[in-house]
């Protein structure tokens, strides 16, 4: 059974038109991550939530925002998508409550195309 679910799997948006990607989890994990992965590149961390605390990477563009209304859901908002924002967007979760890192679970990703 899917534990980290991303919707939609494929999203086409127009240049400059706001778009929202969603992620839900059934694992009750306290940490949720959003990554951007362009072709033949490693996933790049955009931001993550540690419980309700939002942590933005220093080089994440202001164009990218995120919301986490509750433990299970997290959203990635791209306010004005540009052609350079076309990528696979990956959501991941982990339970971080002690000194030992735990396995992170990734969703299947949403492939965003900007036209």
């Amino acid at each position, binding site marked *: 059974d899917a534990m*980290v679910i991303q919707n939609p799997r494929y999203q086409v948006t127009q240049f400059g038109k706001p778009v929202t990607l969603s992620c839900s989890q059934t694992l009750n994990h306290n940490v949720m991550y959003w990554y951007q992965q362009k072709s033949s590149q490693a996933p790049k961390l955009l931001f993550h939530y540690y419980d309700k605390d939002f942590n933005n990477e220093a080089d994440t563009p202001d164009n990218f925002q995120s919301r986490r209304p509750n433990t299970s859901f997290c959203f990635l908002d791209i306010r004005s998508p540009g052609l350079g924002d076309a990528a696979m967007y990956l959501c*991941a979760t982990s339970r971080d409550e002690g000194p030992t890192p735990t396995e992170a679970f990734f969703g299947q990703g949403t492939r965003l195309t900007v036209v």
Partner: protein
Amino acid sequence: LAKTTQPISMDSYEGQEVNITCSHNNIATNDYITWYQQFPSQGPRFIIQGYKTKVTNEVASLFIPADRKSSTLSLPRVSLSDTAVYYCLVGFHMDTGRRALTFGSGTRLQVQP
């Protein structure tokens, strides 16, 4: 955050053992070493994690020398389905004291028949 260095690509044949080494010279005392596997158009998948010496699970082994400045992922008897990109991650602890998963460049493994 500790930086990792891996070979860009490796080739192997079915049935062979594959060893992928990751360098992480500035690993911190409390950092763990974790490996993920990623197939095209899929999210990364956890393979194995360790802190020191050797860790083994049903799919791989992880060898970590005493100085912890490198680690080696060992895949026994690879098959065509092991063709993927393998990422080594260290340095979970951010300035805030909390963790974040940061990926290095990864190693693209191609297994031939």
